[in-house]
């Protein structure tokens, strides 16, 4: 339910409180001792209104502070002590309780009114503290208990006011008083928040509560009997006097209850502290799942937290990697020592472990001394869908073995840890994939930049070239060099190996051929020079195969040499001829063997001759049955289409290879360069 003005802004509440306070002050100065029914009514109403507004304001700023209950209680205690001081001063100021009169002295009156306003605030504050503590860590459904009590406190105050007007109506006051007291007792039992304090806080509270209970008791006693203070309160407001009296009672009972509850909570305080730390550690870990992506780092964190979770002296983590269990992280123990214990227990005995297992030093089934001086060992499997992905170990030096609580904690923690580690593993794998893909993209880019962007054009020589990169970048390369008006140099090469390293070698190969093609005109000599250069730079496992040649585009003559490359095919008169002059691959031999064995081949081109240069990506294309495309199919397509345009032939070959290897992905680059001698056709066409 909502109380009036409850939703005002805090500053408005303060303004209203001050306004009503001033109004009350003026009223009191004019009528220090209200004697008519109307004046009394106005008096009580003003006090109620200003007191209510103060309470609303105090609630608005205490709500945030109540999270640290000890501090709030201390504040209430200080105000209570001030109240005690005021009561004491009043008591000593007047000798006779019935001798209290105000109107005689104006200054006394002013002081009295000020003090009363202060009391209004103090009691309001103490009440709000009680109210906030009541709701602290409490279910919402109990709100009606507090509200009912507040109403009865008000009724009692009203009853007190009526009583002072007409003594015969005293019974109304007492009836409300009894109910209020009863409700105070009931509400005083709401002290659930004590359980959530740490042991240290509980000890503090124990001392504070006993002092406050006594202090409230004293104040209660003072305000219960016909003391000077009570007389003065009756003059100020009978209702407020009764209200103050009941709040003092509340304080006495409440702090008494707090004292005893805290006392009974103390023995379990430590266990409670542990439990709450365990819970917060578990929460910490679940946060970690989303924060730590590095597997190694996460493994370290897991072992550190394991120690906290079960109060162990050391912990370590073993993770399955390619069928073997490997030590991934240790905490407070050396790798060697952890490995000794881990090997000592023989992990193969725990292949079906589905929950935490505690092994003590005395365990008869285990070989003696394997624990290396530790007294108790806990093994927890890291389970992902019942599969063991690793084990978490914790050991204790102290005599106290791991108990059922520890077992539960380690188990719960291990479940989180297993999940977190699995996530990190997957993430790492996908990052690695992405990195590799970027590398491949770069290699592919290099490859495209190295290859010629267009083929040269001649009257009698038709040229077609085609390059299809594999998913895993290879090291194919081809190029044309215009040596002179009539001479065209060409090269096709294949670097062994794949990936970024192959594409770097390819770049080097391009550099070599570009620079020496203009200097050395004989293909065999040129390849020998290339071998010399590459032998120095290539690692021992890498080689490059190549064909280099020159075509005389005026006279129709071709000269070439082969360095370990796939045979050059000549398609002539519907037949395919495989041309393989001897020659070692570049980088295979570092001595003179290369020079001594390489041969050149030279012949005149006949009309419609097709020269076919390619890399092994074509004949070695495989289908799903790992069968190779081979030379026979390749040659058949060439012969069948030999009278067609070169681009068409290229297309037919690629079609043939793709159809053949349908469901198998292309694992090597494919390069195809075709030359066709069209001398006669063109000559007749022109003339």
């Amino acid at each position: 339910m909502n109380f009036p003005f409850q939703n005002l802004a805090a500053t408005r509440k303060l303004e209203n409180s001050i306004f009503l306070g001033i109004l009350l002050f003026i009223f009191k100065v004019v009528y220090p001792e209200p004697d008519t029914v109307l004046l009394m009514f106005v008096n009580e109403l003003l006090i109620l209104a200003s007191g209510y507004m103060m309470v609303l304001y105090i609630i608005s700023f205490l709500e945030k502070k109540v999270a640290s209950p000890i501090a709030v209680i201390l504040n209430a205690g200080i105000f209570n002590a001030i109240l005690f001081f005021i009561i004491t001063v009043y008591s000593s100021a007047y000798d006779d309780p019935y001798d209290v009169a105000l109107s005689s002295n104006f200054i006394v009156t002013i002081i009295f009114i000020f003090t009363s306003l202060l009391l209004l605030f103090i009691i309001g504050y103490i009440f709000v503290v009680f109210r906030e503590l009541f709701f602290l860590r409490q279910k919402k459904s109990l709100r009606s208990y507090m509200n009912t009590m507040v109403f009865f406190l008000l009724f009692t105050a009203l009853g007190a006011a009526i009583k002072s007007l007409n003594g015969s109506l005293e019974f109304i006051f007492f009836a409300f008083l009894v109910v209020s007291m009863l409700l105070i007792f009931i509400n005083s039992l709401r002290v659930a928040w004590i359980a959530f304090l740490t042991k240290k806080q509980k000890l503090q509270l124990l001392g504070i509560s006993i002092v406050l209970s006594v202090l409230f008791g004293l104040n209660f006693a003072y305000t219960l009997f016909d003391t000077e203070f009570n007389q003065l309160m009756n003059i100020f407001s009978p209702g407020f006097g009764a209200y103050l009296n009941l709040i003092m009672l509340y304080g006495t009972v409440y702090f008494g209850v707090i004292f005893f509850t805290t006392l009974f909570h103390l023995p379990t305080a430590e266990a409670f502290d542990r439990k709450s730390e365990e819970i917060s550690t578990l929460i910490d870990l679940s946060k970690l799942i989303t924060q730590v992506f590095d597997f190694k780092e996460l493994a370290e964190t897991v072992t550190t937290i394991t120690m906290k979770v079960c109060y162990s002296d050391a912990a370590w983590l073993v993770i399955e990697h390619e069928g073997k269990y490997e030590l991934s992280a240790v905490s407070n123990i050396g790798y060697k020592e952890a490995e000794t214990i881990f090997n000592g227990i023989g992990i193969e005995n725990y292949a079906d472990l589905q929950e935490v297992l505690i092994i003590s030093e005395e365990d008869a089934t285990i070989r003696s001394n394997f624990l290396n001086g530790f007294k108790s060992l806990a093994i927890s499997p890291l389970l992902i869908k019942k599969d063991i992905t690793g084990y978490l170990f914790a050991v204790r030096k102290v005599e106290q073995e791991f108990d059922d609580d520890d077992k539960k904690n380690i188990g719960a923690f291990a479940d989180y840890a297993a999940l977190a580690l699995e996530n990190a593993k997957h993430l790492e794998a996908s990052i690695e994939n992405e990195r590799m893909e970027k590398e491949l993209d770069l290699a592919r880019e290099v490859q495209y930049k190295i290859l010629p962007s267009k083929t040269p054009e001649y009257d009698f020589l038709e040229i077609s070239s085609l390059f299809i990169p594999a998913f895993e970048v290879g090291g194919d390369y081809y190029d044309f060099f215009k040596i002179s008006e009539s001479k065209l140099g060409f090269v096709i090469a294949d670097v062994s190996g794949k990936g970024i390293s192959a594409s770097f070698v390819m770049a080097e190969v391009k550099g070599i051929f570009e620079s020496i093609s203009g200097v050395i005109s004989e293909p065999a000599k040129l390849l020998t020079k290339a071998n010399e250069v590459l032998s120095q730079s290539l690692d021992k496992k890498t080689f490059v195969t190549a064909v280099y040649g020159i075509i005389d585009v005026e006279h129709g003559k071709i000269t070439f040499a082969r360095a370990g490359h796939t045979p050059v095919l000549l398609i002539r008169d519907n037949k395919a001829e495989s041309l393989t002059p001897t020659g070692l691959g570049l980088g295979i031999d570092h001595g003179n063997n290369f020079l001594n064995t390489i041969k050149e081949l030279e012949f005149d081109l006949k009309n419609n001759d097709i020269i076919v240069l390619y890399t092994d990506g074509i004949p070695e294309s495989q289908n799903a049955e790992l069968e190779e495309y081979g030379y026979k199919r390749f040659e058949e397509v060439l012969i069948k289409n030999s009278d067609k345009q070169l681009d068409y032939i290229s297309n037919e070959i690629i079609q043939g290879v793709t159809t053949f290897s349908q469901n198998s992905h292309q694992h090597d680059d494919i390069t195809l360069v075709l030359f066709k001698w069209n001398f006669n056709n063109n000559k007749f066409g022109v003339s």
Partner: protein
Amino acid sequence: MADFSVNVRGSGSVNIIDLKGYLDAHTAPELENAFNKLIKDSKFKVVVNFDELKYISSAGLGVFMAYVEPMRENSGDIKFSNMKENVYNIFDLLGFPMLYEFFKDESEAIEKFNAQAQP
């Protein structure tokens, strides 16, 4: 993917490496390990038996290039035997027969080693 295995056995002073299956970039390290072990044990006379090898890639060829030098420097060698035609063609195109000795059967290769050791 395709399986591959390396087996090393001794025959007097000569060691024989049996290759089986597919030798490519992924399986080449297994062969490298076998060669490393032989060098560590100072066994430099090696015959590689290709009888059950189905396929060899350029990465596989690279392994022999890398290990032939240390063998020859220690008066040993790597000789090849029992090669199927399709595998031999790959070696042949690259010019390996100009640098390595190939034999129809491993016994011939062993004999050659023993004959060289005699004088």
